[in-house]
């Protein structure tokens, strides 16, 4: 149940828009999301997660990724959606994000399920509409309209910065 997709580097031309290219599509409830394939290291089935005390609620804990201990975030909780029990389809997507001081770190994100890899052209991507106040749009790259459905493209570095984790941790103390 473990598949490595890191080889599928986005090869599509980036000349037109830095947002065009390959995206991994996944869903949380009714909402469809996409993250850049380049950021994805691997996809694994949900496994035993070791809870870590004194961490924000959306941090589910840590897992063993081939000898490395990496944190796992539940994206549903992070986005304020209702928590659901994990099923057969629930996946952990291991992503590589930017950490402090130009380092990179790996993290797992729990999603309801992965569907496909999308190849988006610049024409498919639209800017995130302005929702006015109350909707956080900083973690969003834009929206993709595909076959009549809207997919939300995430800027995963922004969504999961370590900075966010540490600041919450400090707030808890």
């Amino acid at each position: 149940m473990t598949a490595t997709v890191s080889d599928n580097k986005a090869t599509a031309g980036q000349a037109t828009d830095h947002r065009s290219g390959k995206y991994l599509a996944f869903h949380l409830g009714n909402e469809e999301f996409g993250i850049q394939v380049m950021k994805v290291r691997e996809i694994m089935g949900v496994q035993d997660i070791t809870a870590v005390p004194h961490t924000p609620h959306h941090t589910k804990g840590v897992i063993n990724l081939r000898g490395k201990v990496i944190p796992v975030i539940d994206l549903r909780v992070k986005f304020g959606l209702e928590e659901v029990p994990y099923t057969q389809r629930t996946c952990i997507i291991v992503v590589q994000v930017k950490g402090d001081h130009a380092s990179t770190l790996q993290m797992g994100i729990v999603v309801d399920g992965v569907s496909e890899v999308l190849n988006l052209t610049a024409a498919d991507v639209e800017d995130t509409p302005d929702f006015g106040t109350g909707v956080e749009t900083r973690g969003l790259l834009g929206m993709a309209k595909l076959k009549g459905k809207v997919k939300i493209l995430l800027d995963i570095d922004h969504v999961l910065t370590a900075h966010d984790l540490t600041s919450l941790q400090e707030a808890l103390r």
Partner: protein
Amino acid sequence: MRREWEARIDSVAAQFVLGEAATVAPAAEALAWMRQEAGREGWEEIARLAARIAERMASSPQWHTEGALAEGLDKLRRAVEAATAGDAPAAGKPPNELAQDPGLVGDFILETREHLISIENDLLTLDREPSQPEALHSIFRSFHTVKGLAGFLEFDAVRSLAHEVETILDLARNQQLAITATVIDVVLESADYLKQEMNRLEAGLAGAAAGEAAAVDALIVRVQSLNRTSVAAPQPVLAAPPEAVTDAVTGTATEAVTGAVPEAAPAAAPATPEPSPAAPGAQPPAAAPAAVQASAEKFSVRVDTQKLDHLLDMVGEMVIAQSMVRQDPELAGLRSPRVTRNLTQLSRVTDEVQKTAMAMRMMPVGQLFHRVARLVRDLSRKMNKPAGLELSGEDTQIDKTIVEELADPMMHMVRNSLDHGIEPVAARLAAGKSESARISLRATHQAGHILIEIEDDGRGLDRDKILAKARGRGLVGEGHTPSDNEVYNLIFEPGFSTAAAVTDVSGRGVGMDVVRRQVAKLRGRIDIHSEPGKGTVFQLKLPLTLAIIDGLVVGVGGERYIVPIFAVQEMFRPTPGMLSSVKGQGEMAMVRNRLLPVVRLHNRFSVTPRTQEASESLFVVAETGGRRFCLMVDEFIGKQEVVIKSLGEGMKNIPGVAGGAILGDGRVGLILDLEGVYGEHTLA
């Protein structure tokens, strides 16, 4: 034009730097070109120098270790610079691109540091046994290499200092200069300067504003002054050819002796670098033993620590995978002797691989000891207490991190021994002891730990004085008579010092406090044995590695935690009679007639336990920071050696959690930081 010349000279210089691996051919070719070119330009001086060097290289098989040749090359370089000054850009020399290359500079710093370590060791050997040609040669070679590298990267201050020191050492090699304590002092000082310079360059690499190189001129003058005294001293006279004296490139007397070779008439040339005929026959042929030693040295590879850690991770995973296969019920059901045999072989191999991988992080403790040797030498001089240092077990292997972290505590302890332990000479003689004190450092392996002992033959710890001081500060209550061990441990209290006066060596009561904290951080312990009038022994017991921890695996609800075994005193199932509560909140348990606070781990970590009932749970009595408490957990699962892993960025400094570890089934267990677990309790 000038560039071309420089390139040729560098290619010759590179051959010098290569040392044993050098070959004559490329250098000879470059020199031939220079001679021809200089002849065409009409630069007689340069043509003559080039010819002389080429000749010398062809005639001596050991040419690459000859300082004089390298120096001749320097002279050639300067002459060329002077001759080509016309076509150099007006703004001075172009910025050196090599010195901007962080990779090259990084390698230079690393290599120079290695040389500095060996220089210091050899100098201390030389200090004890001045007639040690091997040590002297080795120092010479190290300075020579540093000089070559610095020249290559154009770190002029480093190059010129190394050059002067090399000149001195060359004199000593040729028995024209006696190795006195002054000489060793100055050379040590030069090594210190180079050390500082390396730190500065490193800071520059790290992006910090690299300051200017510290002033080196004064030091160079001091090095040179050694040289002048040597010429004046009644040494085997070496007739400096008049030609060399008039050849005033730098104009110092130094040049007359060592710089003579390249300029001197060919007839005089063999005089200097080889054992001069006037020198006593006692000098062994220099090059032969050096070569033997070099070939006997172990080859080593520098590896990025990240790669090493990755390897360790993977090996850990392999061991887990291996044990999962071995314990697979389906395979066990086969009852096949062949499978069993092969699996046994597999586990033997994986064990071996794991051991080897772990050993890669280890290094001999000797490097640490040698640093102490330097300190003993400096301090014993400064305090006028002659002291000899005995080392044993220098080859004992220990984790690299521990060696680094241990440097400070060792310094403090040795300083303490010299300052407080060892009596002044008069007192020693009065007590019937030898004038020179003895300090010994020993390292041994002992049951999965390393034991480092620091022993002095001084006056021993003064129990009464320490106790009086402690009573004065209220650390020990009146009427309480502590054991010897308790008294001795008082010297580790912050700010505790029995010294009447604060000196720049010790007496502020900071050092020993640092020792205890650092040793505790390394998960080690420290014991003191002392006998009045006979001396004191500090015993440090440390784990072999910081990467692995011996742990008790305990369970709370569905979670598993690892309690570091060194902190565990005992484990038991409490009976209701042992328990009491304070104001209905704080729980206490009576354990061996001591009331200990109870910490419920499930409350600390907000997990749902199997049972809330203390009498159905398990108590682990743990000690941390001198305090004991009972940790309440659901069950005891087993004892396991685990590899400590960081939880990653963003999960550092979680109170109560020291890290993570992969358990036998591949899951992650959290390693408890008992101080944090307990500390929180006191806050709550």
